[in-house]
């Protein structure tokens, strides 16, 4: 019997984009001193206190923080990056959906082109892909929890699609 997948749309959260145009190592060291974790490498994500640091693309990260801390964090990051990069508030640019249940790997093979079943895709990995024409970014938290970030305009459509697939996952499984 397949385990039930559950969806949980996250409440509004602070999302900041950190982009560095030079060597990222000095900033990463400063980041580690300030927050307890260095900026994660390519296709990786780490948790640092209340922050989730998610690699986005070369030289760019998305930082998730409680909404209440967003403004202060932005100021702090701007000071930290100094002349090495920029910080932009993108809180309204993505919504997060938490997929609970071990069968998220099966679910994410539907409508997409991403190898969600790859043994190397383990907690701490992030990936950007397309599902049903919709750009989506995965942040694998644990074996039974994956966060999916998607533009708010697509969220209802994508989550509806996933819900419809998940309803029949025991039928679809093979």
């Amino acid at each position, binding site marked *: 019997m397949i385990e039930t997948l559950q969806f949980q749309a996250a409440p509004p959260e602070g999302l900041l984009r950190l982009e560095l145009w030079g060597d990222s190592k000095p900033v990463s060291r400063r980041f580690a001193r300030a927050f307890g974790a260095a900026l994660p490498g390519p296709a990786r994500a780490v948790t640092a206190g209340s922050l989730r640091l998610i690699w986005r693309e070369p030289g760019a990260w998305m930082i998730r923080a409680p909404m209440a801390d967003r403004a202060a964090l932005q100021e702090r990051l701007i000071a930290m990056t100094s002349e090495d990069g920029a*910080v*932009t508030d993108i809180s*309204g*640019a993505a919504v997060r959906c938490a997929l609970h249940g071990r069968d998220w790997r099966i679910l994410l093979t*539907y409508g997409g082109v991403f190898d969600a079943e790859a043994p190397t895709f383990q907690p701490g990995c992030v990936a950007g892909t397309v599902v049903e*024409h919709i750009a989506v970014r995965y942040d694998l938290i644990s074996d039974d929890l994956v966060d999916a970030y998607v533009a*708010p*305009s697509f969220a209802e459509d994508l989550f509806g699609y996933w819900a419809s697939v998940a309803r*029949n996952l025991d*039928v679809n499984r093979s």
Partner: protein
Amino acid sequence: MTRQRRPTGGLIDRTRPVGFTFDGVPYEGFAGDTLASALLANGVGLLGRSFKYHRPRGILAAGVEEPSALVGVGQGGRFEPNTRATDLFLYDGLQAHSQNRWPSLSLDVGAVLGAVARFLPAGFYYKAFLGKPDLWKIYEHFIRKAAGLGRPPVAPDPDSYDHRAAFCDVLVVGAGPAGLAAALAASASGARVILLEQDAVVGGGLLRDPARLDGATGDSWISAALATLTARGVRVLVRCTAVGYWDHDLVTAAERVTEPGQTPDHDGPAQRFWRIRAERVVLATGAIERPLPFEHNDRPGVMLAQAARTYVARFGVVPGSRAVIATSHDDAYRTAFALADTGVQVQAILDTRPASDRPIVTEAKARFQVMFGARVLRVAGGAAGLRRVTAQTGGQVLTFDGDLLAVSGGFSPVSHLHMQAGGGLVWNETTAAFQAGDARQNQSSAGSAAGLDGLSEVLCDGWAKGGAAARAVGFKRAPGPAPQVVEPWPGPGHGVSALEAPIGADPKRIFVDFQNDVTLADIDLAWREGYRSVEHVKRYTTLGMATDQGKTSNMIGLARLAANEGRPVPEVGLTTFRPPYTPVTLGLLAGHRKGFQVTPLRRQALYAAHQAASPIWQPSGYWMRPRAYPRAGEDLHAATLREARTVRSAVGWVDVSTLGKFEVVGPDAAVLLERVCATTVGKLSVGRGRYTFMLREDGMVMDDGTVWRIADDRYLLTSSTGGAERMAHHIDYVRHVLAPGLKAAVANVQEHWAGIAVAGPRARDLIARLAPDFDIPPHMSAARTVMAGVPVQVLAASYSGERAFEIYVQSPNVDPIWTAISAIGATLDGCPYGLEALEILRIEKGHVVVGGEIDGRTTPHDLGLQRMMNPARSFVGAAALQRPALQAPQGRQQLVGLESGEAIPEGAMLVTHAPGAAEGHVTAGGIRALEAGAVALGLLRDGHTRLGEDLVAWSPTRRLSARVKVVPPMFYDAEGVRYRD
């Protein structure tokens, strides 16, 4: 009744009877039966009529290669035409219908076409088209009525379809002996393996022929192999056909979750489309037996020898009572034994080859009349079945009574996927077959698909190819020894070419392509008429076209063409195999989405608020935007005019959240923007903005928008809704490729910021009441404030020609702003407006739009934007603008305005006199908001020098025209007075 179910035997489940109907007549079969086997078991051998001559058609094969036994299945939206009865597994309630007959299968009026076949030669349609054009009017009706194979469903498809991705180290296509061995070997090495099988069960030829593998029976070995594969985590997909092999080892597969016409269980999908990306692919796709050429070789009762054996061994069905075997290969001898063992009277084995003393032949000679150097000349029979077989041997002509002729003209390896993957084919002269040659991708062919013959060789080859594929990916563990085989008659079948027609037979009666009624005479005619390329012959005669794509017909047709040419077959070549290998339904390709919105629907943050106002929606890319907000009794036109007039006379507000938006930050932000934008940016002081536009590298305008300096080192760039994705890519390209060293960061904030534009002479009043203490910025200035308790960024920009403000707010917080604007706006006689009013207002003001005037072919000069260009020429596209063709003083399509007293048809050609040659076209047209008449924008050759000319906007396809005067593209407040407070 000459066909019947045996009391025992076969792999069907006799404890589970299944009821079905064929042409409305109820029958019963068993679980595991195909429609073909069940009909044979019920004594039904006539399944349809051929496409062209309506000749009776029976069952030739037992698999997907079947060209003749095509039926329509299901009801309503689930009806599926052209389904192979040999590839359709029984389910309770299955309703099948024969095709291409009227009024009934046994009494078909269309069969009269067979009598006039000589008037319907190859290339009939082409020749018909060469006649007088008026004649087409006469026979079009009849041709259209006769055209098409099967009938499409007329109701909407109620089923759903999945698309799914899968990845593996080794993909094995085909789960016959070679495929199973390959999967076992690859998985033993530790590789991630997927095994596809188009049949409902795995095993392939092991289900048909007795053998012992590793000491077990075939059935037991298959079960053990499946258990091993499952334990190793191999994904085994049955009823799943690999239909396409694409670049980078992407294989697409169609999985039948339900059978055609069947209602899915549990609201699940009917079919699933797999995209499988593999590191290595082993093609164990088997081989297809070929028929033999003789007169009336398409009659019901003529069956491929392996198929006849399959019906006996797998389905427990005896396909006839008196059989003749005609062959050029040892394999058909097995059929003779299998049939005889069930009580069928084997009249003779007609072997085209010379006599031999191989064990299987010797054993057959002891039981049957075996004739060597023997060819079938013709058969007699019709819709009721086969009656006689006439053969020649050694100058003698002999006749045999029989209701089954089992034929084997040798085997063609299934190389379709190999060829789709770019692989070459090589010709095997002995077996007269093409087989897989060079591989262009990471594929290998195994077993029969590689041209091998004999179970032991096939198994060993599959084992070796599977192991090699795993090793190639890096799995070094040895898989152990290949399975050991013991079978009654081991070794190859010693097949020889039997592609030529027997001497003395009439080529008009020898069918090559059973599905399209192509005869040897048709091939000859095509050759006489000058068709030399096999691809041309295919299209002229329809050889190898339609649903079976020549799986059983290609080789005989090629051989005939080669004989006419006097060249060997490999020099004539082979038609190209293209996807799909077997037909797939359109629903499967469409996948999850169907109906009106087949693409994702993007909902702006205010979607619910708009929905509550019941607007007329308009698709805009993936977005759905309000086109107008009609009030009671209003149509689109009335609502649009009211909304546009409200903006001109009071105030209106429109959702502009979908615009592209980018924040560019850093000490080099302005430098980066002056690469992206064709205007100056660096001179903007903080809090100021300007109109800007962007060019492609070829100098053509690609988009436009505004750019704002919102802090010392921070800019906001807006671009069009439709071009937002393209602009994101373009900026990324400039940032990372053209100017990677700049200290600038770019964030796509399209959805971070929701936007509402407020426009009209009372817009300032509205803003003042929303934010009483706000120091309202002048035109093209920006400022921050708080509205309805929410922080906002206000940009004083206008797209309408009126004093206007764009209010940007973080998307989750936009609802209170819209609500407040609506409430205060209503007290100012304002209203929301949609895209249609926006269009009228922008045309009057002469603003260009992407997709209209910015059509990918216009330069800044064409659009009258050249004075705004950055004189430093640092922007993308600047160099290309220097090309002579773009510098030429004449010949360019240039932006103009058009005025008329009558409606100007959008898209119409601009001509001097109608009818006449087009000199341009109307890009956008509309009524005037406040005054009488119509205005439009257009692109006109040398338009900038033709102001004052009278032209005609002419649309012959819509039978519309209007006289227009060419004017400057600005119809409203040319001085910009209305922007000022």
